[in-house]
């Protein structure tokens, strides 16, 4: 094992800035090793003796500091990025207006969050995107596969089959109308075979799944979209017994009050709630970071759904509906799309985007999936508008007044 290599040997960079274990770093700093320059020409055996750490640890330290096995961080100019972006397909929603707002569909390399009240079509949107990831490259699609992480149990495979069938039909029609485009064997079966479904029951499973996705995506390089439906559910319901949680909290509050009165202490009770919140926030934000990392490293789109919650504000405003999981989470995703009902029509509002301005558009959900709203006069007959009674999604009505 070589010493720290010459290129980094004279750096005054502090050891604090390397991902070393805190216990080892404490031993190193008490032995006087504070910067990279201090480790110059120090052999691992010598380091282990002087700092009083195991030889394996010393080897590990030297390895981390000299940056072995780590590829240098690529820095790219905006021009290179632009050229790459222009070659990347986006994943269409099949609602032309919505695609226009999003800049051609859901963008790869970005994290898109879809928020909305129950029944407004978040899951339908997700299924549509998972199916649309498979649209052949010949037709301008991504021609890839999808990862679908379901936390709510709302992934109904019959519904997916419907949307996949409609998509396959549509693509074959498009291929037939265009000359010399052959999309070969593109059927409902091939689409469904390209959707990898994970069912996560709680936040721990979700976290573990998202962290293991890197290896999964490496094994399945055709994956172009990762859908998480929904991110909020396990975090809003992660306690099996809500009354137990309340009991614990109130008993904690009681003992705090007891402490405070008996010993003249000031105990801030909301701090307990805050503590639990910070741990949740840590998990959420680290998940957001791994999503962004996946999106950039593997050129794929990440789509998350979020629930809506009511925020009460003191004063004249009263309450308003807003995405759940709080403000810190609001910063985490790149694109935020809010779905809502108005005049018994479905609306999609682009609320946050680094590249496109805020806009609101209409969309509808048909048997075949997400579509543009077509006014009665121009309604073409090949779009199946009428339900045949067995489709639950078509007959979905706004549940909120």
């Amino acid at each position, binding site marked *: 094992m070589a010493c720290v290599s010459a290129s980094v040997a004279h750096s005054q960079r*502090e050891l604090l800035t390397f991902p070393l274990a805190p216990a080892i770093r404490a031993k190193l700093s008490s032995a*006087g090793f504070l910067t990279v320059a201090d480790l110059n020409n120090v052999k691992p055996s010598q380091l282990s003796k002087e700092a009083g750490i195991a030889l394996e640890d010393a080897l590990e330290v030297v390895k981390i500091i000299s940056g072995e096995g780590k590829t240098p*961080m690529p820095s790219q100019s905006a021009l290179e*990025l*632009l050229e790459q972006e222009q070659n990347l397909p986006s994943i269409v929603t099949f609602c032309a207006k919505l695609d226009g707002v999003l800049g051609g569909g859901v963008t790869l390399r970005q994290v898109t969050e879809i928020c909305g009240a129950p029944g407004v079509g978040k899951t339908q949107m997700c299924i549509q995107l998972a199916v649309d990831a498979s649209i052949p490259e010949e037709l301008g699609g991504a021609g890839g596969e999808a990862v679908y992480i379901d936390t709510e149990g709302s992934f109904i495979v019959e519904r997916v089959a419907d949307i996949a069938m409609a998509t396959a039909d549509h693509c074959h029609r498009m291929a037939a109308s265009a000359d010399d485009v052959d999309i070969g064997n593109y059927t409902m079966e091939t689409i469904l075979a390209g959707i990898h479904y994970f069912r996560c029951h709680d936040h721990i499973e979700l976290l573990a799944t998202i962290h293991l996705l890197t290896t999964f995506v490496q094994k399945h390089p055709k994956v172009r979209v990762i859908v998480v439906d929904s991110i909020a559910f396990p975090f809003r319901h992660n306690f099996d017994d809500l009354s137990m949680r309340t009991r614990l909290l109130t008993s904690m509050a009681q003992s705090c009050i007891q402490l405070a009165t008996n010993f003249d202490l000031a105990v801030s009770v909301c701090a307990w709630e805050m503590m639990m919140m*910070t741990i949740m*926030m840590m998990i959420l934000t680290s998940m957001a970071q791994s999503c962004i990392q996946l999106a950039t490293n593997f050129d794929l789109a990440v789509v998350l759904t979020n629930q809506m919650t009511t925020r009460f504000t003191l004063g004249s405003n009263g309450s308003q509906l807003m995405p759940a999981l709080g403000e810190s989470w*609001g910063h985490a995703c790149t694109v935020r799309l809010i779905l809502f009902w108005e005049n018994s029509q479905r609306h999609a509002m682009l609320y946050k985007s*680094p590249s496109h*301005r805020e806009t609101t558009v209409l969309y509808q959900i048909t048997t075949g999936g997400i579509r543009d709203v077509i006014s009665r006069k121009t309604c073409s007959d090949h779009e199946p508008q009428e339900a045949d009674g067995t489709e639950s999604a078509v007959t979905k009505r706004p549940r909120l007044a």
Partner: protein
Amino acid sequence: MSALRPWMCKALTDKVWLLLRDANINTVIDFVVRDREEIARTCCIAYKDVVSIGRVLMAQFSTFPLTGLQLYTNIMSSHAILSTGIASLDELLDGGLYAGELCELAGEAASGKTQVCMRCAVTVATVHAQNTMYIDTCGSFAGQNTLQHLPGAHTQEKTTFNGPFFVLLFGEMVEETLSKINCVKVHDIYTLLSALDDVSSSLKTRTGGQHGNVKLIVVDCVAAIFSPILGGQQMDSLALIEHLGRQLKSMAADCSVACLITNNLTSGVEGECQPCLGKVWAHVPHTRVLMGRDSCSDTSRKFTVVKSVRVKTPVTVLAEMNPEYPAG
């Protein structure tokens, strides 16, 4: 301070070093705080040697005094004020972003922080013909977006921005501008620190290349890096926040670059909005600007300076953000 190594100075021979180690004197600090005579007595080293080692160590680890005049001449030679590309924001900041200083932009989600950062990067590339290092932690930097901020972009039809047609149209100008903006995507604090270290070492040694000529460093955003490690049992995160602040400040001063960082605004305990990372971070930026949406118009934003060494605080201005109708 650093460990004592043999041959740090002439009198510190291998033998003396071993003697010092036996007396449990491992670091420079251990040496400095001990009494010289005591060291000479307990370690059986000549008093003359101990004094000479002490003198050399002091000289090595001290800094040099500078006169006010020298500082002033240095500042004047490396002085630069970079325009943000938004006229009223420039005015609010007394000219724009100052080289050697950190400016923080804090705002709620979707308030336009990334837009301001991109506008700055493009302006620095076009107006000042300098390079920008853009460190992106939340995956929001895209080449497509920078196009919108190019001067003259607003006079063209919107459809021409998409696709290679635009590049054909403005070919050279676009290529030259965009190649002046370098982007690194980082996802944790250690890679952020090593990216900054790379930039500062290549700026100090003037090796040129990709990081040469960098005049603006953008970190968008700092809170996204720290949120996953703040709280719970992790004691290091505060030290790392402190370290990032120190590194950015010393880089800004040593290499005379301007730093623009963004931070998130979230509701605090009493329900009012405050920037993340708390009091430890609050003293790091030289200038702190809060930005938010304006209730009257969708495209304009409100900027409020809450901390500054130059201008009276707090001052608020409204600025038009829409790239198609630039302010001024």
